[in-house]
């Protein structure tokens, strides 16, 4: 989201850049410090839901001051959410997500607030910039999935998912956690399981 600092070409914004983020991580705090209890509650639910729906361990998520306009980063098993955004109110988040849904920019789900979190957790789980053997192996299958999905017309997803494989992965993962299941979400889930992302 905020551009992924150093995420490489085409990564418009996700967490993780565990291998590429060059900015700082300062003033790390527990999520309980979030300014809006409603956003805190939604975040906690999103963490549990993402793990349950995708069959992955719960992420250790914290707040931090991050450089630039990144929404968050994932590194060494932890996810840091940028206070610049996550100290906004749930109402502001809701308004922004609605605009993104109404314009067709993002994939509609039944949990708009959780959408932001799940999108970021997906970037933390896998991005094309990841260099581990596991990430590279998963990347081959995710890349194939992105191409097949693109060729199919990408119906049922927001436009931004088409921009590159990282945004596709973040959106198909989000839909798998909170949206209507389809053949792409099913394949995404199997990739999470196969590679233990």
């Amino acid at each position, binding site marked *: *989201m*905020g*551009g*992924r*600092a*150093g*995420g*490489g*070409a*085409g*990564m*418009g*914004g*996700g967490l993780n850049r565990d291998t590429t983020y060059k900015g700082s991580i300062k003033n790390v705090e527990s999520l309980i410090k979030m300014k809006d209890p409603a956003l805190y509650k939604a975040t906690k639910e999103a963490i549990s839901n993402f793990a349950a729906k995708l069959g992955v361990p719960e992420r250790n998520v914290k707040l931090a001051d991050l450089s*630039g*306009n990144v*929404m968050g980063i994932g590194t060494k098993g932890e996810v840091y959410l940028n206070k610049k*955004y996550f100290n906004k109110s749930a109402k502001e988040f809701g308004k*922004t*997500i609605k*605009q*993104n849904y109404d*314009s*067709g*920019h*993002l994939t509609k789900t039944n949990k708009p607030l959780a959408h*932001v979190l799940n*999108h970021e957790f997906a970037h933390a789980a896998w991005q*094309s910039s990841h260099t581990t053997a596991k990430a590279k192996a998963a990347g081959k299958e995710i*890349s194939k999935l*992105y*191409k097949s999905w*693109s*060729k199919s017309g*990408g119906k049922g997803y927001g*436009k*931004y998912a*088409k*921009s*590159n*494989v*990282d*945004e596709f992965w*973040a959106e198909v993962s989000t839909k798998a956690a909170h949206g209507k299941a389809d053949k792409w979400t099913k394949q995404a889930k199997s990739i999470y399981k196969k590679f233990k992302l």
Partner: protein
Amino acid sequence: MAKIELTQDEIAVIEKQLNGELNTFFMEENEREIIDGVIDKAEALMAELNAYDELEDNLVKWYYDKYKAQAD
């Protein structure tokens, strides 16, 4: 294939997107409209050329590379 035309605003947003400087959720409304418009055009050209083998992992980059190639 018709010549790809891009405005200065479109080029600026494409470069921002490729540099990872666009915030997926909180980008400016005009930036969102521009990048989504570029994605629409890129997708249409990809389908017209049936060039999915060239897609690699980035539709926007593919489209921008096509634009730059014709400008050379």
